[in-house]
């Protein structure tokens, strides 16, 4: 018995899948961008001398890293509207869940990156009369950022793959598009193969891009 594999089905579905892939890139890029912003502040807060910065930052990071992203998506999409009394759009819910999730992981990346910078850098900055904030901004963070590019790249890849989870709230990214095409064509084998390959192309491209960035900043 030969396995039926309909290549034309993939070709016919490509335009729709391409739209899904773009949406996946869009939501990933937005989430990681917001996540980097959150992560920068939370990562610094984790290293703060003041408990009222440190403790909430730690709770946020522990909560997000200790619970599944899928559950976080459900909380934002289904549970939050009950408290707020308003419906949350799938797009807003997807970006919010992924950003909040990404922020916690990025915070840990930045925290470790900042801690990896030699203490002497802060001392040199302070000894020149610069404030803690100036030294952080001009000396510590730029160096920590360069050092964390590989991990930030990994986080981007992880988020790109994990963003498939927002398909459960009906947000039409790549995975959801695949499901919808299968619902009308029954081409599970062809479409899931195509979806997997598209994800693979995206993640490999990012890996290459990050390797290039890493080399440039050396």
């Amino acid at each position, binding site marked *: 018995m030969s396995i039926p594999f309909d290549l034309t089905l993939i070709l016919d579905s490509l335009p729709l899948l391409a739209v899904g892939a773009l949406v996946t890139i869009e939501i990933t890029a937005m989430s990681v961008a917001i996540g980097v912003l959150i992560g920068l502040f939370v990562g610094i807060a984790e290293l703060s001398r003041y408990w009222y910065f440190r403790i909430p930052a730690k709770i946020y990071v522990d909560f997000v890293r200790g619970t599944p992203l899928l559950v976080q998506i459900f909380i934002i999409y289904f549970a939050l509207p009950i408290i707020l009394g308003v419906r949350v759009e799938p797009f807003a819910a997807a970006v919010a869940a992924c950003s909040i999730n990404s922020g916690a992981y990025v915070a840990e990346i930045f925290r470790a990156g900042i801690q990896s910078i*030699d203490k*002497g*850098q802060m*001392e*040199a*900055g*302070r*000894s*020149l*009369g*610069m*404030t803690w904030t*100036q030294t952080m901004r*001009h*000396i510590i963070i*730029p*160096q920590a950022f*360069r050092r964390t590019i590989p991990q930030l790249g990994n986080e981007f890849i992880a988020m790109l793959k994990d963003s498939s989870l927002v398909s459960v709230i009906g947000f039409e990214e790549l995975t959801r598009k695949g499901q919808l095409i299968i619902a009308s064509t029954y081409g599970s084998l062809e479409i899931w193969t195509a979806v997997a390959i598209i994800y693979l192309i995206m993640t490999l491209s990012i890996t290459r891009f990050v390797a290039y960035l890493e080399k440039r900043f050396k």
Partner: protein
Amino acid sequence: MIKIKDLHKSYGDHQILKGIDLEVKKSEVVVIIGPSGSGKSTLLRCVNYLEVPTSGSITIDGQEITPSVDINTIRAEVGMVFQHFNLFGHMSVMQNITLAPIKVRGMSRYEAEQKAIELLGRVGLADKAHAFPSQLSGGQQQRVAIARALAMHPKIMLFDEPTSALDPEMVNEVLEVMKVLAESGMTMMVVTHEMGFARQVADRVLFVDGGKIIEQGKPDDVFLNPQQDRTKEFLAKIL
């Protein structure tokens, strides 16, 4: 210029400084020697509050350092050179030198760069303005670090074992820069193991051990005719 009164510093139960009294006059060069763990680096780092004293008082140029004074304005007047240079690795030599004058003193970039070029000339590195620290030898890096500190026009310079991390053949180029600086009238506190430098340049040598100043005096007196047994013991080991 610097007045230190009954300075104590402890980490938990561990006492590093046990009552230091010291006055450094304008243009004076004070060299601090002593065994490792004696507290000599801690003493230096207390002067610009990189270490916060447990008790005692420090007065810089007439201003006592208290929690209410803006420590950054005092630090801007006190340059520091570190054992491991601590240059900013992501910045060129020029950026290393101009960053603080621009950010802290509010100098224009042009002005700061003119000043940096002049300072680089003084430390013999006029051609290295656009190099990055990783491209320089240890001796060159330390000279850049000295130029960086001088760019703030400090009234006092602190040197924390500036040649200890250098290969032997690079020690002299750094000491030479420090010597010229001392001759130009800079007030300096130097922690070092370079006894030759101390004898040549220092106005006064302090021997610190166990968190206290054990002995002090003119270099030749301390080195050739030490009064205290602990000083004799230490000098016997290193000379």
